[in-house]
């Protein structure tokens, strides 16, 4: 039995200690948002936050988490709605198939929890680990910019 702290709730899970967090989130805890994309740390569709830092949950064995807090898209929602970043994605209609989107949202959360005034290059560099095959990039970037503004900041263009 391993205790995990996920979205402010303690969960006891019966899984082998080497199980990557992703499988536990999806199969044991029925949290759908994080997705299996590669299992190799190359696509970011499994991105969640561990203590506010984005990680590939496909490569984090649950035995390593200890008391660290895991946050997933499900944990961003509150009484008012889906949370600032997901709401921005919805407002920008930033999805085609949407398979990559939960990972995008969590990486964007990771960025905006560090700064709400990133530059455009920082934004793009920060999002670089996450892949989207549908080509939704322009809308995803727009959604993150919108979320930054909603949080009282904004993204500045810094490229010549």
């Amino acid at each position, binding site marked *: 039995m391993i205790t995990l702290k996920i979205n402010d709730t303690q969960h006891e899970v019966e899984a*082998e*200690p*080497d*199980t*990557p967090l992703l499988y536990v989130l999806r199969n044991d805890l029925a949290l759908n948002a994080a997705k299996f994309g590669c*299992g*190799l*740390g*190359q696509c970011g569709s499994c991105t969640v936050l*561990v203590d506010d*830092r*984005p*990680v*590939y949950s*496909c*490569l*984090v*064995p*649950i*035995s*390593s988490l200890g008391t660290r807090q895991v946050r997933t898209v499900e944990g961003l929602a509150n009484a008012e709605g889906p949370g600032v970043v997901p709401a921005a994605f919805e407002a920008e209609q930033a999805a085609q198939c949407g398979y990559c989107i939960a990972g995008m949202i969590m990486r964007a959360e990771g960025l905006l929890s560090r700064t709400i005034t990133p530059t455009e*290059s920082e934004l793009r560099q920060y999002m670089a*680990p996450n892949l989207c095959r549908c080509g939704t990039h322009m809308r995803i970037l727009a959604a993150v910019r919108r979320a930054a503004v909603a949080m009282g900041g904004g993204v500045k263009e810094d490229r010549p």
Partner: protein
Amino acid sequence: MTKSRTVLSGVALILLFAGVGAASLLFRSALPAISPPAPDSFDRTLVKQGEGLAQIGNCTGCHTMSGGKSFAGGLALKTPFGTIFSTNITPARETGIGAWSRAAFVRAMREGVARDGSHLYPAFPYDHFTRASDRELEALYAFLMTRPPVEQPTPANRLVWPLENRWLVAGWNLLFLREGPSNDNDRGRLLAEGLAHCGGCHTPRNKLGAEDTAHAYDGAWTDGWYAPPLNATSPAAQPWSADALFAYLHTGLSKTHAAAAGPMGGVTRQLSQAPDADVRAIATYFAGLMKDAPGARTPLAAIDRQSEIDKSDPEGAALFAGACASCHAPGAPMMQQGRPPLSWGTPLRVDSPHDTLHVIVEGLASPAGPTGPTMPAFGNDFTDRQIAQIVAYLRARFTDLPPWPDLEQAVAAVRKGVGQ
């Protein structure tokens, strides 16, 4: 601190030499400024040759900032003596080398003196470039002078007192600058010791920062990374044949060794584009130097002591299985595709864990061009203790070598970006 003491004694020594040195060595004359020659005034074959040489020399490795314009400089190089910013070597008139004549360029390459007569710091390996021929320097000049000019000032260096006085370098030159032959019928050696300046990373340096030629290619530290020996003391598990080395230099990956990481990644990115014949010559030269290394004489079979180590270190085993096995376990995709087993990789076999730690904490970018091996960074995923556990497990499972001591501190050091 030993470092500052080293610097001070070095400075004393330099001052001594400077004192006795001829003023003509100390203070060099400025060479006249020219207006940048038109790019089409250079012969295209010469430019092309220069490009190959620039790739061999990995000029861009130091003279381009990450995300910056090519050859516009500004990259911070951390040395034991402080931080030096690389200079702008585009033909920009004000901030680059646009006003440099060929003579000024050749003097800088061979003697470490800028056009205005000031001394360059030996972080710029002019001690190696003495071995470049006139024709090669001419080609390099032609190549650089045909790049797009970028006006970008170089930030001021931050050096320990009193090294900001450039004339002190004259003493250093007196001590260490030896002109090597620029003709050598071993092309590989000529390039390795000359433009490619391999010793810059792989040869240990003395207290004054000069390469210790008595220990050429014994392995050394650069920027917190350990550049392994390239001679008979090579720790490689498998022979570095000329072919294997060529493949490695050319693609950043050897199927019997590992992928190029850290500063070497930048080198292979350049060599992947350099002329094959030159890269092959370098490979042949070093294969010769390493032919008597233990792994060359008796290649090591791949080691995997999984059943044993999984029992003795179940925590490490769980971390490995969850985080690393997706690529590195037998049967996993990388292994099915013929990537080298971990036990053949040099990083696990050297005396220091730093290279292994760097790769785990920072990940690995494709070492040659857009396609090639990559590895995600695990710095955010694990605590220092967990990374230390993983590395201890790797060393135990995939080598027959004694455990590394003080791993946790080493992780912390790598995270802070301080190496050896």
